[in-house]
């Protein structure tokens, strides 16, 4: 086991502006430097630094015992992480791609999510499951799923999806520090998105479970998260020309769900559209629309609409642009918000 070098010295090597991938790597590095119980494990996370290079340099800096290339077996990766957490470590596991996480589902659902509950609090499992997720990178089959609804349906898991470089850092730090398991969904197509970001003074650690208003507006609320956040912000800018002033709420966390921030916004605007890449039928949008309707019914000028991926298995790369909700589809939905009822 090698010892950690000074994080400040290593941090200076990070370029500004930073990418989301770099912010995630920095979050793991800072957590590992501060807390010797933090261990990273997964397929290719060591020497290669991950297929997206998100774990780049961690094995070199902290040694192979702290950042471990495991055999290629997702159930084994997560299952051994359970035992490591039982012995007092904080494992951060990488699932490499969304659809590769499915073999680990039994461990996640039968053990990880419920160990605290079944042991009446004696065995909390502070495990972070990093899942690069979502489409838009031209990946072949099984490389672009949005599986958040499965995780959301499992009590005991936190489900988090950052949309900005700052949040990628702040939320991953919070996930690693959490005493409960966190499914940390990393929007693959935002890995290379950049933001002016000071590696010397990284963004604050964000508590999990708080949504944020990314853009204020008065006409309607776009409720979104992860890779759809930039889409909604772009749609909101384009909507100005139509005379619509759209508010964009970035959920950041699907579980716990920030009803307060979402409903505050919808009560002010009176209209809402939920936007995500995942399928509409049985997808997160149904839950969100129902919650908003239950709580804000008398403030609503229109039904809560959903803009989601189609209810199809993730399409091949050459067709994915037709599947993914883009700016036009979001604006079409906004146009359908019964504006005529106002006049």
């Amino acid at each position, binding site marked *: *086991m090698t010892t950690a070098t000074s994080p400040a010295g290593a941090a200076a090597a990070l370029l500004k502006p930073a990418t989301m991938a770099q912010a995630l790597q920095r979050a793991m590095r800072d957590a590992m430097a501060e807390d010797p119980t933090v*261990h990273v494990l997964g397929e290719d996370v060591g020497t290669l630094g991950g297929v997206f290079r998100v774990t780049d340099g961690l094995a070199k800096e902290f040694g192979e*015992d702290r950042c471990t290339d*495991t*055999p290629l*077996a997702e*159930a*084994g990766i*997560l*299952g*051994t*992480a*359970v*035992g*490591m*957490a*039982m*012995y*007092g*470590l904080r*494992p951060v596991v990488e699932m490499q791609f969304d659809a590769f996480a499915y*073999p680990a589902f*039994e*461990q996640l659902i*039968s*053990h990880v999510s*419920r*160990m*605290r*509950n*079944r*042991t*009446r*609090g*004696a*065995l*909390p499992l502070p495990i972070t499951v990093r899942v690069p997720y979502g489409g838009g990178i031209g990946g072949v089959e099984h490389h672009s799923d949005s599986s958040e609804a499965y995780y959301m349906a499992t*009590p*005991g898991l*936190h489900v988090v999806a950052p949309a900005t470089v700052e949040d990628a850092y702040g939320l991953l730090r919070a996930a690693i520090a*959490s*005493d*409960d398991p966190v499914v940390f969904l990393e929007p693959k197509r935002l890995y290379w998105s950049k933001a002016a970001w000071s590696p010397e003074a990284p963004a604050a650690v964000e508590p999990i*479970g708080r949504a944020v208003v990314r853009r204020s507006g008065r006409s309607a609320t776009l409720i979104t998260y992860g890779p759809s956040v930039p889409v909604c912000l772009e749609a909101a800018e384009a909507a100005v020309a139509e005379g619509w002033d759209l508010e964009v709420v970035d959920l950041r966390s699907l*579980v*716990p*769900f*920030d*009803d*307060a921030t979402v409903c505050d916004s919808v009560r002010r605007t009176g209209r809402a559209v939920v936007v995500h890449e995942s399928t509409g039928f049985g997808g997160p949008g149904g839950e969100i629309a129902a919650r908003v309707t239950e709580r804000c019914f008398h403030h609503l000028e229109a039904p809560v609409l959903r803009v989601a991926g189609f209810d199809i298995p993730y399409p091949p790369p050459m067709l994915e642009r037709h599947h993914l909700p883009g700016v036009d589809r979001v604006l079409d939905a906004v146009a359908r918000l019964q504006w005529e009822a106002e006049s």
Partner: protein
Amino acid sequence: MLALRAVVYRPAPPPEWKPRTDPAPLLPDPEPYRLLGTDAAAGVDPGLLLTLHAHLVRGRRFNTQATALTRQGRLAVYPSSTGQEACQVAAALALEERDWLFPSYRDTLAAVTRGIDPVQVLTLLRGDWHTGYDPREHRTAPLSTPLATQLPHAVGLAHAARLRGDDVVALALVGDGGTSEGDFHEALNFAAVWQAPVVFLVQNNGFAISVPLAKQTAAPSLAHKAVGYGMPGRLVDGNDAPAVHRVLSDAVARARRGGGPTLVEAVTYRLEAHTNADDATRYREEPEVEAWRAHDPVVLVERELTARGLLDEQRRRSVTEDAEAMAARLRERMNADAELDPMDLFGQVYAERTSQLREQAAHLRAELEAEGEAR
């Protein structure tokens, strides 16, 4: 006409290949290891024999008492380990206090032998929450109902202990059916690659509910599976308590000194049905059961003790009385109704309740108050 020059294709020889490990020392012996009834039995420590005997008698009584409690409706279900007591007792006794045990749902007796309060061990099967004891306090994982999923936990824990410099060993229990699960494979593979201090004990009791071993695997023995992972496989007579204890103790000692994992197959038999919900007469014939009854683990040890003059009437009586007293206490305590607080439903889902759970808890509290007022 074009003259084609004949080209003689000479493939380059492939790079040299050799096996990574010599498989011979990993292979199990052709016959299960036995002590009782062999000349080697004389070498077994009398103190150990007496300890094993006392635990076996208690274990048998625990099994019959728990089975009786299912008939009285005090336990939702009980997967009996009658006939397999030697495996369970030896598993618990082969460990030091600092070691960890990873039991499956049938391994209640291993947990009891480890010293956990029997009522706490039966919590899952009683329906009074899912785990009744603090796993850290007893270094015993919760009884696992999904098959083989607890095996990677054992590997991870053993690996973590070694990383932290502790000489802790994990012993994971699984049945013959569980060896067909993917998690069994992944756990063994991780353990061998990491050289984790873990011991896997397969209690081959002949059936996965109703499916016999022949329909479960085509391997020469379950212990043979070890060689494919690069760890030693050991076969042992699972009804011969000192033999199981010896094989497990050796494997634990080997793991503790950095020798890596071992797969032990204990050949035993489930004398009772899978649970009280099962009808064993549908899938096996009585003569087979009778043959195994004649190889009863309790009787085998008693025979050895008697032959050595170590089991007089007084000793026999005191062991039986101790087991009866344990059963009486268990009966009495299980007959008391469990006191459960419905509000506990929300207590430990997360470290901190989500706003959603706070709302739902308030809803249930209001329901309970209304119920209380109506009463």
